[in-house]
Structures are given as structure tokens and as C-alpha cells.
């Protein structure tokens, strides 16, 4: 909790070096197919499949990290249980724009509960975890203090 200034420096460095956050639009995020998992409920259940569109994939980082994984991230983030969401996105990619979303926190964050709301404070950036489907995502928010 007392490492605020240190993390700020790290974040600023990361921001300069890496952050090129690209909000994918719905069509760009469209991925491949997904096997139906229900005989009785398949057809209509797939409508909301690509609901989570603002994924903020950090292209510079991911391209070097794992192209296949990155490609797969575009598929069906919320609906399925098995997607490796954010495994490639998390590499130091701290997008400090309020409202942007990541799927894995940078290292050295502290959980803070305030007013019945759960936050993760990572340096000077505050995240609010939430479920999107069965996945946990972290939304950058303003400091509650």
C-alpha cells in the first residue's frame, strides 16, 4: 500500500514503452466457432456470444508473446468457460484510462474494500473487478478516495 510512487514510475515507464491499447470493435472481435454444449438450449443461447467487445488487447506486447493465444482471445470471451482470456494481455499492459478493461492485474496490487465495493489498487491505478459472464475483468476506475 505504501509503494505508490514506485509503482507510478513503473506505470509511467510501461505507458511510454508498451501501451497501445486498441479497443476492438465488435466485428474485429469476431472469432471462430464454438461447439454447442447443449442439445436443448443451443440455438438461442449463442446470441450474446460476443458481447464483450472492448477488450483492450495490447497488440505490441501480445504479438511477441503468443500469437495463437492472442488470436484465440477474440473468441467468445464471456460465454464459454474455457477461454484463456487475458493470459497474453497481462504483460505489464496497464492501461490507465478510466473505463478500460483488462483481464489480469499487473503484479503487486492490493485489494481494498470501500463502501461495500471491492477494488484492486495497483500503484496509482484503481481497478474494480467484476464478472463478465464467468470471467473476471478489471475496469479502471477513479480512486474512491
Amino acid at each position, binding site marked *: 500500500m505504501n509503494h505508490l510512487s514506485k509503482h507510478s514510475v513503473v506505470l509511467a515507464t510501461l505507458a511510454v514503452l508498451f501501451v497501445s491499447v486498441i*479497443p476492438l470493435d465488435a466485428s474485429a472481435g469476431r*472469432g*471462430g*466457432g*464454438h*461447439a*454447442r*454444449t*447443449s*442439445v*436443448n*438450449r*443451443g*440455438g438461442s*443461447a449463442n446470441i*450474446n456470444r460476443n*458481447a*464483450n*467487445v*472492448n477488450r*483492450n488487447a495490447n497488440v505490441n506486447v501480445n504479438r511477441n508473446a503468443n500469437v*495463437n493465444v492472442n*488470436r*484465440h482471445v*477474440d*473468441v*467468445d470471451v*464471456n*460465454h*464459454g*468457460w*474455457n*477461454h*484463456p482470456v487475458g*493470459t497474453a494481455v497481462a504483460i505489464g499492459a496497464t492501461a490507465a484510462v*478510466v*473505463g*478500460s*478493461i483488462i483481464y489480469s492485474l499487473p503484479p503487486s496490487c492490493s*485489494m481494498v*474494500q470501500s463502501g*461495500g*465495493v*471491492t477494488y484492486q489498487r495497483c500503484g496509482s491505478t484503481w481497478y*474494480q*473487478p*467484476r*464478472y*463478465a*459472464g*464467468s*470471467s*473476471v*475483468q478489471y*475496469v*479502471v*476506475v477513479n480512486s474512491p478516495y
Partner: protein
Amino acid sequence: MRLQPKRRIALILAGLALSGVVLAEDLGTVVTSTETPTIDPAAMQALNRMGAYLRGLKSFSLRADDAVDEVLDSGQKIQVTKTVELQVHKPDRLHADITTDRKAREIFFDGKHFTLLEPETRYFTTVAAPPTIREMLTAVETKYGIEFPLADLFQWGEDADAAADIQEAMLVGASKIDGQLANHYAFRQDEIDWQIWIAQGEAPLPLRYVITTKNEPGEPQYIANLTWDMQVKPADAVFTFTPSQDDHPIAIVVQDETPATQEGAAK
């Protein structure tokens, strides 16, 4: 098989048009290839019997090991697996432990509330839920985008089941699943082909099912193997989630609202 004259002609024409494999022999007999749509009434009966049995189950526990194909844009198929441990007391209590190769979740439903918990971080969300398992499954799927595992177990034998959509049905044969004798059936519908292995004997439980999605490139498949435990009656306490100090409440995104929410606007 006896067919009405009109039906027989239609079959012959359809067969000729498709592949010419229909053999029209003596009057009154039509021998068709397996490509001709047929519904074996015995297969439908077996499905109905299983459905009725499932519908009559009050309490059960089961473990399901499943695998889902995901097809990448390149056409490459990726298989991902998960294990679901389900405890059910119908019509309004359910608990699920879901462990995929990448994440774990727990689900609680007590007839009033639905809770999704990540056991590692202890993030949880609790929302109001409709009073029955079947309504709850539909609600969390449409409202929150959570594809509930093994939803079929609560649909077979109910009014809304897919029996009416079946275009072809056949018995593949007898087989053994984990040493248990089962009958293997195969069905065809518009968008999917599916197979099911139903236990022989007094308890016609589904032991395995496979769904092939035909309207997706690569025809990805889903397979679930089910291990039933009919002896253990789940205790009531497992269905209700009571947060401790170590549990952290978080929100869940509503999926079917306006696109603004889906764009990730801060809430």
C-alpha cells in the same frame, strides 16, 4: 417398415435426387440407404424414458468430465476440458464446482439467489434469481451470459426439450461406459448431430453425450462423460452461499442491456 404410399414416393424421389441409392423392390417394400431420414421409434422411446426418469429425480450428485472444441479463425481446432461437480435438489437447489484447465468457479443457487464465486480470489457476486433451476439457468444465460454446464440434464423430459426437432434417430448398439452397460443412440437435427449413451436397466441415466455442431466451420464437438451418485443426498447447506470476511463482493455485467454497457463504460 411400412410407409404410406405418398410418403414412399417422396422417399423414392428424394433418394433418387440425392444419390440414387434407393432400391424400390417388390410392391410394399422400400429398402433405403442410411442416408434417408428415418426415425427409429425405439430410439425416441429410449430418449423419452430417460427424460421421464431424469424428471423424476429429486436429489442427485454427479461428476461430469467434458471437452469442447473451439475453432480458431484459421480453422485450427483447440480442445478445452473441464470438470463439473454438481449437487442438485430439485426443483430449486443447485451447487456446482466447475474446474477448467484455466479457472475454477463455484455456483450456488438456493431458490432465491444465484451466486458466482471464484474460489481463489474469493470474488463473488450474488444476484436475485427465479425460483426454479430451469428458470434460473435461462436467466443467468440470457442476462449474464453464463453458459450453464450440463443444462441438458434439466431439459430432457420437459416440455421444452428438443425431441420435436429430431429428424433422424437410431440405435447404434450396446456398449459399455466405465463397465456399465449402455445403449448408444444417435440423433440428427438441423444444426447438430448428437449421440447419447443411456444406461441399461432400471435407471436409464445418460452416461455420455456428444454434440456435433454442423453449422460451424470444422464441425466442433462437445463431449461429456457423466458419473452419477444416486446415494449421497446433498445437504441443504451446500446450496446457500454465506459470505465471510474473506469474500469480496463484485458486480456482474448484464449482457442484454444497451451496447453502452458492453463497450465497457465504467459503472
